[in-house]
Every structure is written in C-alpha cells, then in structure tokens.
C-alpha cells in the first residue's frame, strides 16, 4: 500500500518568480492505482507530474484504473493535434520549472518570454485535469447512488457532471487560444502605413487621401498618435503616396478586446491595423463625370518598434545602418550653411533604404527615417520568419502579397465588401468618419481575426498529422 497524500507545493524562487507547483500523488490499493479523489478526505486534489511521463501517449503498465485516464479526455474537447500541442507545451513548461528549481538561481537564464507563453497552457491543462477527476469522482458517486436507488443523488450527480462538462468545453476553447502561436508584433509594435495611389489617376489619389483620413480617425479613437512621415500630394488635394506612423503612447494599450481571464495583452497599433494591407478597389462616379470609374489604392502595414514599449532592444543597432546626409562633401560644420537636410538611411545587411526630406531640420528627418526603415526591416524579417515556418504568407496573416485585392468600396451602393471574410458593410461615410465601433477597421477586423485563428489552427493540424 502506498501512502495517500495530496498537497500543494509552493516554491518561492529567486524572489521574482513565484511558482505554484501543484503536486499530486497516486494511491495504490492492491496494485490498482487510483487517483486521489474528493472521497479520500484530504482536501482538494490537484495535479502533479509524477516521475514517469504521464503525458506521453504510452500508458505505463501499472497505470490501470477503474476510471478512464486523463489522457484521452482531452480529445473529447480538442482535436488530437491540438491536444498533443497542449500536452507538449505543458510538459515543456514543467520541465523548465523543474530545471529552475534544481539549478541555483545564479545560473538561470530563464527565457521569461517563452515561459509566459507556456504558463497559461500549463495552467489551463491542470485546471482541465482537475475537473476531469472531479467528474470521475462524481461518476463514482452516481454509480453508488444507482445501486442505492437514490434518485435525488443521481439527479444531483447528473447536474454536476453537466456543469463540469460545460466548464471543460470553455476550457478547451481557452486552450486553443493559448496554444496558437502569437505574433509578438501584434501586441508590442507600432505601425507604419504606406499608402499608395494605384490605377485611376486623380480619382485614386483622392481616395488615398480619404482613406488616410479614415485611418487617422481610427487612430484617434484608439488613443494613438498619428504622424505623417512623408507625403506627396497632387491635384485636388489628393495623395499620391504617403508614409504614416501610428504610435501607442506611453506604453498604454487600449482596453478594447481584452480577454481578461489570463490577462492576455491587448493589440497594439500593428496588430490592430495589419489586416488593412492589400489593394483597396474603388468604384465611384467622380466629380467631373457621369460614368462609374474604377480606381485603386494599395496599403502596406509594417511593424515598427515601439518607443514606448519595454523592448527597446528591438530598435535597429546603429552599426547596421548607413546614414547619409546632404553635407557629404566638404568641410561641413560652421563652414557651410545649407538647409537641405534630407537624410537617407540604408540597412546594410538587407539593403533596405528609407529617405525622408519633408522636415526642415536634419534631426527630424533622421528620426522619421529611422522609424520608416525599422518598420521596413522588421516587415521583411517577419516575412522571412513566416517563410521558414513554412506558412503561406497570405494577406490574412499580416500583409503578405501587397498586390492582393482585399476590399471593394462601391460608392453608388454605399457598400464596402471585404473579399477575405466575405463581409459587406453599408455606410461608407460613417465608417470613414471614425467612432469606436463601426469604423473602417473595426467593422471587419473581428471576422478577419477569426479567420486568422482558424488558419493558425489548421496549420497546427497539418503539422500534427505529419
């Protein structure tokens, strides 16, 4: 016989991390290992990772119980691939935690980022397992009640089991979210938008300007700063091309779209605007004609390192940049008084360039150029990372093929249709005008985000089947 104990271990570790490391032991009654349950009168049972790896698909020889082992229960709520991923991430988390405990704190190079991604999964998995056990315990009760023909008891048990099953379902959903790969830029990066008028001449330029106005309103309502880096205006006050930076101020993210339970961070400007990348097609009767003209504007949304976020280390190192000014030749300094302060920056490793000349002072031109080039470099980095992961870089997962037509704005019908999520909204003027709900971005982003989740899920499935 083995002793029966259920307890909870708490480790205070290096003063910074406080880990709640639940522990669970098994009871063996005549070689019949049973998980400690409520009936064992020892308080609430919690889960531990026993010395053997209970999360592998192989069932240890002696682990035969009367109740169904936890392993298969995950699959009732999740697909096999997702379930596997949950287990893998949980195990990874627990392994890291174990190594933290066993090694001296001075030698720890904890990857806190990795840990923060794994921790929610592990926590949810434990919650899940705990509930499964409770269900088992109640089933036992139910069985006994049936034998005793205690109708009330049976009903109670059934109700409890139903309740528990619902909780399992909701946990399942949360596990899916926790397990999906998250693009860090979605939460911590600012956005640089590059808007360009496409086919359609004057009309396209006019639309560009309106589109930019719409984005400015959205940024304003989200409490973000909208700064023009460079702009080329043409006739009728239209915009031929423009680069704009949208910054979150003082590290404060907006409060919308929060999934509060495990404090998932909120989207930053990049994550919020990223689905705007692509070609926006316009059908409209222009001022000086009666026929409908078709024009287009292309938008590219690039992730820019945020000055307000804590990861300042993401800014491009100066050693990788070649900065050129107009004062290249001659003595410079007090010798010369030129007001041409254009700045061009080249990112040496990638060859990407950015040049700004719209400001009077070199200082301001330089600041804007750094912003622009950081965004462009980060954008290319992202594309490469996605490529390495084997993910198709489609317009959905953040600005892939910029020539893909994503939306049509039909002004005669006052309708905007997004071709990716196949949604149509009416009231173009209202959407352009801003407002927290029903603005140009927020009208479509929930659908697009849903599609993105499904795509990411599908990716995991594909990988799981290999």
């Amino acid at each position: 016989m083995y002793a029966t104990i259920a307890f909870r271990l708490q480790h205070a570790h290096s003063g910074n991390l406080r880990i709640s490391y639940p522990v669970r032991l098994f009871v063996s009654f005549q070689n019949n290992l049973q998980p400690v349950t409520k009936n064992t009168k020892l308080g609430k049972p919690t889960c531990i990772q026993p010395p053997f790896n209970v999360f592998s698909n192989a069932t240890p020889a002696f682990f035969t119980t009367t109740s169904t082992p936890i392993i298969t229960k995950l699959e009732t709520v999740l697909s096999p691939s997702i379930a596997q991923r949950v287990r893998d991430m949980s195990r990874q988390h627990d392994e890291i935690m174990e190594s933290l405990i066993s090694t001296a704190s001075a030698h720890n190079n904890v990857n806190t980022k990795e840990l923060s991604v794994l921790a929610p999964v592990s926590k949810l998995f434990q919650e899940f397992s705990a509930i499964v056990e409770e269900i088992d315990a109640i089933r036992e009760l139910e069985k006994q009640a049936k034998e005793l023909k205690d109708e009330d008891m049976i009903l109670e048990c059934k109700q409890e089991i139903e309740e528990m099953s619902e909780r399992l379902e909701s946990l399942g959903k949360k596990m899916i979210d926790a397990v999906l790969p998250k693009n860090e830029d979605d939460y911590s990066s600012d956005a640089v938008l590059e808007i360009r008028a496409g086919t359609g001449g004057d009309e396209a330029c006019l639309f560009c300007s309106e589109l930019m106005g719409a984005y400015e309103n959205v940024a304003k309502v989200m409490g973000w700063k909208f700064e023009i880096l460079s702009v080329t205006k043409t006739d009728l006050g239209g915009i031929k091309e423009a680069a704009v930076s949208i910054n979150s101020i003082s590290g404060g993210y907006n409060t919308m779209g929060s999934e509060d339970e495990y404090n998932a961070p909120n989207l930053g400007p990049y994550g919020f605007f990223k689905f705007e990348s692509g070609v926006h097609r316009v059908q409209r009767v222009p001022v000086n004609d009666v026929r409908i003209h078709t024009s287009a504007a292309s938008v590219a949304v690039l992730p820019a390192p945020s000055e307000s976020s804590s990861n300042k280390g993401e800014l491009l190192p100066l050693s990788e940049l070649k900065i050129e000014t107009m004062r290249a030749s001659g003595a410079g300094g007090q010798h010369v008084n030129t007001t041409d302060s254009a700045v061009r920056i080249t990112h040496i490793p990638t060859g990407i360039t950015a040049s700004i000349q719209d400001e009077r002072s070199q200082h301001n031109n330089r600041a804007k150029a750094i912003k622009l080039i950081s965004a462009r470099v980060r954008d290319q980095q992202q594309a490469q990372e996605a490529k390495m992961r084997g993910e198709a870089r489609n317009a959905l997962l953040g600005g892939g093929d910029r020539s893909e037509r994503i939306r049509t704005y039909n002004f005669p019908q006052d309708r905007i249709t997004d071709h990716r999520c196949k949604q149509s909204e009416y009231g173009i003027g209202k959407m352009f005008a801003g407002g927290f709900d029903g603005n140009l971005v927020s009208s479509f982003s929930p659908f697009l985000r849903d599609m993105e989740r499904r795509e990411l899920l599908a990716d995991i499935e594909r990988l799981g089947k290999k």
Partner: protein
Amino acid sequence: MGYHDDHQDDDDDDDSTNNNSSTNRTSKKRNVFSILTTSVDLLKECKAPEPEMSACHLFSHVLLNLFPRWEDNGFAILAKILQEEEQDTADWYNDDDDHGNHVGNTQVTREQVDIYASMLERRIKKEPLQYIIGQWDFHNCVLKVRPPCLCPRPETEELVEYVAKDIRQMIELLRIKSVGSSTCGRKVRILDVGCGTGAIGIALANMFPKDVIVSSMDVSEDAVALSVENAKFVLGDDFTLQYHHPLLCSVREYTRTHLNKEEEEEEEEEEDRFANCLFEYDVVVSNPPYIPSHDMSTLTADVVEYEDYGALCGGQDGLDVVRDIVERLPEWCKGNHHDDNDTKGQRTKRPFPAVCWMEVDTSHPRLIQSLLANNKHVEYNCEIQDLSGMDRFVKLLVKD
C-alpha cells in the same frame, strides 16, 4: 526678368480663372506652379545658392493661404511639385479648367508676388534663408534667427543629442543619490558657452524641463538678446526657471580669480557681476567659433558675408576659444556642489565627473588631445564623428 512679366497682367487681385487658351507654361497665368518654376529659373540664372530649395522655402512662407502653419512644411509640397515638373508629369497644370483648390493651380495675389520678389532679391544676394524667413527648426524647437548670430547647423543638433545622453545618466545618478534623503535630486547645471541664438541650451532645457538649469554666455549683445527672445519663445514666459539670463562676457572674463591686483576697482565690479553664479557646472557645452583663419577665405558668400565673423573664426588654428574654455573648466566645474533644495547650504560631492562637450573643426580632436596631454585637471575622453563621417565632437572630463 521673367517674373516681372506677370505683374503686367490684370490689375485686380482677386484673380478668377484665366480663360486664355494659351498653352505656354510661362504665360500670363499667375498660379503657384508658374511662379514657382519661373523663380527657380531666375535664381539659377543669378547664381543664387540652392535655387530649388530656396524657392520652395521662401515661396511656401509667403503662401499663408495654402500653408497657414509653420508645421505644415509647405516647402516639401512645393518641392514635390518641382520634382514632378522635372519628370514632366505635371501636364494638368496647364489645363484651363479650374480644378478647385489644389496647390499648383492656386492663384497667387499681387501682394504675395511682391513679398516673394523681395525675398528672392535677398537670396540672389546670397543672404541665408534663415535670415530671410526669420526662424528655423532646430532639434525639437523652432528658433528665431537674426543676423549676425550664427544660423544653427545640423551638426549642432547631433551635439545636443550626445549631451542629452550624458544628462540622462546624470539625472538618474542624482536621483539615486537623493533616495532616502528628504530632498529630491537636484537639477543638472549646464553652461552653454557662446550661446548665439541660444540653440543648444534652449534645446536641452526643452528636453529636460524639470531636471536642468541652463546658464549661458556670449560676447555679442545681439546674441544675448536673441537667446532671451528664443528662451521665451520656446520655453514660455517663466523660462527663467530653466534658463538663466545669458551673461554678456567672454570665456576669459568669466572667472573669480583676479590676477591683476592693480585694478582693484574693476575687481569689485567683476566680483559683483558673478557673485550669484555658482561655479559648479555639471555640463559645459559649446559650439565655439572654430574655423581656422586661413580657411575663412574659402567660405561661401552666404556664410562669410552675413554671419558674425566672431562666431566663426577661432584664430589661427581655430582653437583660441577652445583653449580659453579648457583653462576655465576646473574653476567652472567644482565638484563639491550645493544642493539647491538643501537649505542648510551643505555641500555634497557630485556622483559623476563634470563633462565638457564641444563641436569643433575636423582638424581639432588630435590637437586638443595633445593640448591636454599634461593637463592635470582636464582629461580628453573621446572624439565622435558627425553624420557625414567627419571628426566633429570632443568630450572632455573635468577631474576633481
């Protein structure tokens, strides 16, 4: 001259759309595009410096109806129009149809043309743009610029950034030191030597409004007056909390050591002058005149004919003022400092060495390094290149 032709047109100012079917671009239309392109041609003809950019800056400054605010940076929009003209994509500017209120086709009034014309005349005489317009951007400020004060250069913006980096560390160190005491960290004390327009000191005060107190000095009365004006313009009416009234004196004069005991009367006067000055600066920053005298003849007219000679030339090797500064540094930067908030008048030791940052001629870093080789009080720290890759800035440390 091309642009005068436009004057011979209609006499009234409210120009309605000209329905002449002339297709000649330089015809009698008085719109932004035609005036802009004509004036560029004119400036080129008269060998004015930077013809295209000059036209854009001056013209946009006149077109207040199109570009009402300084921040609109109208010059950039005009510059793009000129670029299109080069690429020959600006056909629509010739249309007779009134496209409404877009930039190139906007009509220009007679008054605007007159004002612009007088500005162009000054530019043809090689006057700096900053003087003609009267103000310019510098770092995070807009500064009034008037002759003969030196027009702030982009290199000096870089200097501000390097100094700012040190100031940030100093603020932090002072804050740490004050933890546990009843007073909060004192302000960082800065001395801007040869302040000119006030650019450096004011930019720093603007960056660290609550954490620095700037003193400044110049030998030119114009500079002192302009610095005060700019301090008020940028920092507001209560600028004296951050920016002391600049002193009218030279580097040599700014001292309390009186070597000449014969002139006792003057001694007392000087005593009065600097009685309230705390010679305990943490940062001494300067863009002193540093051009060697033999280089002065190589300068272009727009510099040498308009900007103050005294603000440019630093003597034979350009190091006259730099040497004076080096000599004064130990006296200016005493290490035991007063805590502004400490009413007992106690002195505490500065938790970092005082620094001196200067913008200099490219030839100077090596010379300054050897100058300081045997100096017990001032130590050469490093030199830094500007964005053009030239040696431009030196950092010195003042040892206690």
